[in-house]
């Protein structure tokens, strides 16, 4: 009887752990529109591992480039196209073709 109880507790914990981890490992997708020469929204809060998608709704070509270290950048994004990236850390970014266009990603723990 004692062994059955132990197995039951272990199974319950395993399932709980599986579901919690499964839930945590499902990334959320966030979309930023590039329109009217702006990133909309300009500031976004996400979780580590979430996916960001930038969609160009403008007539002209844009890109998304990390501010400061410039350690990541998209290729040119033409009208109607999107680019996505998994977010690992907070970062400011801008369009290097139009440096007045700026955005910010905040990673919440």
């Amino acid at each position, binding site marked *: 009887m004692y062994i059955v109880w132990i197995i039951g507790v272990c199974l319950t914990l395993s399932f709980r752990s599986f579901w919690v981890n499964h839930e945590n490992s499902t990334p959320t997708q966030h979309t930023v529109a590039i329109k*009217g*020469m702006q990133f909309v929204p300009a500031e976004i809060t996400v979780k580590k591992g979430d996916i960001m998608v930038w969609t160009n709704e403008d*007539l*002209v*070509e844009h890109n998304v480039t990390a501010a400061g270290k410039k350690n990541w950048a998209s290729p040119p994004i033409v009208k109607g196209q999107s680019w996505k990236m998994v977010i690992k850390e907070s970062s400011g970014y801008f369009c*290097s073709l139009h440096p007045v266009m700026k955005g910010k990603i905040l990673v919440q723990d």
Partner: protein
Amino acid sequence: MKKLNLLKKIVLLGCSAIYCFPAFTQGNPTLSDEEVAFVAITANQIDIDQARLAKEKSRNPQVLQFAETMAKDHQAVIDQASALVKKLKVTPKDNAVSRQLLADAATTAKKLRSLNGKDFDKAYIDHEVAFHQAVIQAVTGLLVPETENSHLKELLQSIVPALKAHQQHAQMLQKQTTSN
């Protein structure tokens, strides 16, 4: 004396761009949609031509990148406008405003060609600030109010944010070229 002449050239460059469009907006010319389309295409082509000149003459990486962006963005506007007028079966028509623009652009290009190095960069960027300001005023104060076709009006309105971003970009470079 040489410096004074150079300063006069730079001031004139800015002024020619500032005053060409408002002279028309104050005179309230009447433009048909065909003429509005021609003015819009001409203004964009002028900035592409100035960008080509900058790519020939400048060695400043930031000025070269700005010129590349101007050439690409204004070509995108021309392509969109051309596709729209084709769809609307409108034939862009030469007019007094577009002729004046071309005459001013020829004067500006001549003056820019006479400058080199940092003097060229400064004059080109100063011109871009003034030109975009004039175009923004012309689009919002003349071309949009004169346009009857809603699709053409919408296209003109949609390019204003890009014109403003170009002007702000040029102003950023203007501060850098002034501080260097």
